[in-house]
């Protein structure tokens, strides 16, 4: 399976302009903002070693616990930076202006984070969850040797894709063997799956794909992403883990098929939905106008066409935790609850 775009994802970075929150500035003049490139696949607390020295002189005495906010919204550190950016900046803002805090951790909104260890813990937990979805067991992750665990985590932190691929291939989490991609792209490269055909067949059968959806529903319409209202609370965003059941059924499985299987409510009348049999066509037609529509679907900063093979999307655009993180803006025509 070709993974040519994976390299770009791993090299992807968001330029950040990080401001120290006013309430924590004790010096005059206040420190200038820090400019820093943050890897898409990285996590915010991992920037602490670079940001702390930059701001330390301005900080009041006390214990440091780093957290970030964007326009007043505390950022969840366990969501990869690239996903936060895709989700919260409808119209990409570069550099992305974030505010950093070292005091007053909002524990009622954010899970506590004990530095790099906490992020590592969260990453491995996520990897374990992905392994469970794919294999029905987290054993491969849990049984990793200690040096492999360390090496895997380091490769994610430092963006070393070669090392990552080498170690993660031992987990046998190669998700999709899609015969149609081979036909579309007649490259002789078969990847690691060919090493063990039984393994590949088994993976093909298992075919549950770890997907995290970040879903934002808006009531008012907007044509331009610049006009999209911004978030002020996480309550506006639904965060869902729904594994995608990968089916081929004679044709290749597209991104659209995957979205349909996760959110059948967006596609009334589709054969994938569960309770269409009782509806007559006229009714479906009438209801269509009142159905929610996707305004934006963004993965790793791009808006892929819905017709492309889902296997390509997963293999190239997934995060190192084996989850495909999808940001979705959905417009609901009527106010919620009516």
């Amino acid at each position, binding site marked *: 399976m070709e993974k040519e775009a994976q390299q770009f994802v791993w090299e992807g970075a968001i330029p950040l302009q990080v401001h120290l929150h006013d309430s924590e500035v004790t010096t005059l003049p206040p420190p200038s903002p820090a400019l820093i490139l943050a890897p898409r696949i990285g996590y915010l607390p991992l920037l602490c070693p670079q940001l702390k020295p930059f701001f330390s002189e301005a900080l009041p005495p006390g214990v440091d616990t780093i957290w970030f906010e964007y326009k007043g919204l505390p950022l969840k550190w366990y969501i990869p930076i690239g996903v936060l950016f895709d989700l919260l900046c409808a119209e990409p803002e570069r550099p992305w202006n974030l505010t950093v805090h070292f005091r007053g951790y909002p524990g009622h*909104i954010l*899970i506590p984070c004990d530095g790099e260890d906490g992020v*590592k813990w969260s990453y491995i937990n996520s990897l374990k969850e992905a392994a*469970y979805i794919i294999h029905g067991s987290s054993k491969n992750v*849990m049984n990793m040797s*200690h040096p492999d665990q*360390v090496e895997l985590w380091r490769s994610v932190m430092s963006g070393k894709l070669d090392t990552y691929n080498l170690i993660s291939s031992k987990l046998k989490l190669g998700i999709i063997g899609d015969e149609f991609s081979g036909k579309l792209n007649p490259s002789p490269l078969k990847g690691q799956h060919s090493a063990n055909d039984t393994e590949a067949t088994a993976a093909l059968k298992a075919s549950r794909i770890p997907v995290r959806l970040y879903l934002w529903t808006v009531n008012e319409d907007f044509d331009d992403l610049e006009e999209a209202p911004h978030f002020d609370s996480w309550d506006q965003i639904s*965060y869902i883990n729904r594994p995608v059941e990968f089916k081929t059924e004679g044709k290749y499985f597209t991104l659209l098929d995957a979205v349909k299987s996760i959110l059948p409510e967006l596609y009334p009348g589709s054969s994938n939905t569960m309770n269409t049999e009782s509806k007559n066509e006229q009714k479906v037609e009438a209801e269509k106008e009142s159905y*929610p529509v996707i305004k934006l679907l963004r993965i790793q900063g791009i808006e892929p066409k819905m017709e492309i093979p889902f296997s390509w999307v997963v293999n190239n655009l997934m995060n190192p935790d084996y989850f495909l993180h999808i940001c979705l803006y959905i417009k609901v025509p009527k106010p919620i609850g009516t």
Partner: protein
Amino acid sequence: MFFVCRSFIIFNIELKIINRETTLLDIRYRGGSSISLHCLQLHLLSRMISNTATCDGSLTSSDFHMAANAFADKWKKFNSDFPEWLWIDCSNRLGFAAHGVSDGYLSVQKVFFQTSLKEEHGECSSNDCEEPFDDATLSSGDDGHWYDFHLVYSSSYRVPVLYFHAYSSDGQPLNKDEIEKSLSTESVNVLKESKWTFITQEEHPYLNRPWYTLHPCGTSEWMKLLLAGENRTTENRMEQYLISWFSVVGQVFGMRLPHEMLKSAC
């Protein structure tokens, strides 16, 4: 240590056949032997599953809804002096109606645990399991803590997950240390040896806030054991699922299901 299962809570498991159809699991916290709830490594009883493993220990989200209703009904019937479990419907949480499935979770609020009774409680021998909730009462004394429990379905692990929120009488949330202190003495002893495990803080999937939870990664394995050997119809099995599951996780908080509830499931 690097890994997720940094340490284990130790249990003794004793499977006790009550009659032909009912298997009562009595799990006790003890210092000496070999099972972890957090990421369960069940070595034992493999003989029992090898021939009858018709269920893989997991359930679907619609099964969960069904099991949740059955659980809430039985609970109400046999624990009428205890707060009720209510199904919180979240079908509309995406801003549009969920499709074909009832999205939501099971919730019980304001469960009071009197801390002073914890000391006397200690271990549960297999004989006194018929007196449920001797330490979880509804009295309104000050020397205790309040708990909200949510049973949430995890579509990744395809099992129920227990989320909980603990607070003192004045509404202040308890931190992890305070929660551990309010657990049974034996749990506390084990937790002392294995800091920061077993209970973790994660984002509540419906509330978008940090809640405490018992990690679900081993659940399907021990549920497979619990449900093994039972010749039930699928429907019965689903009804029984949450009851069996809660008979294990409830014990972390000293809550034991009444005997009738376990029996009536058959």
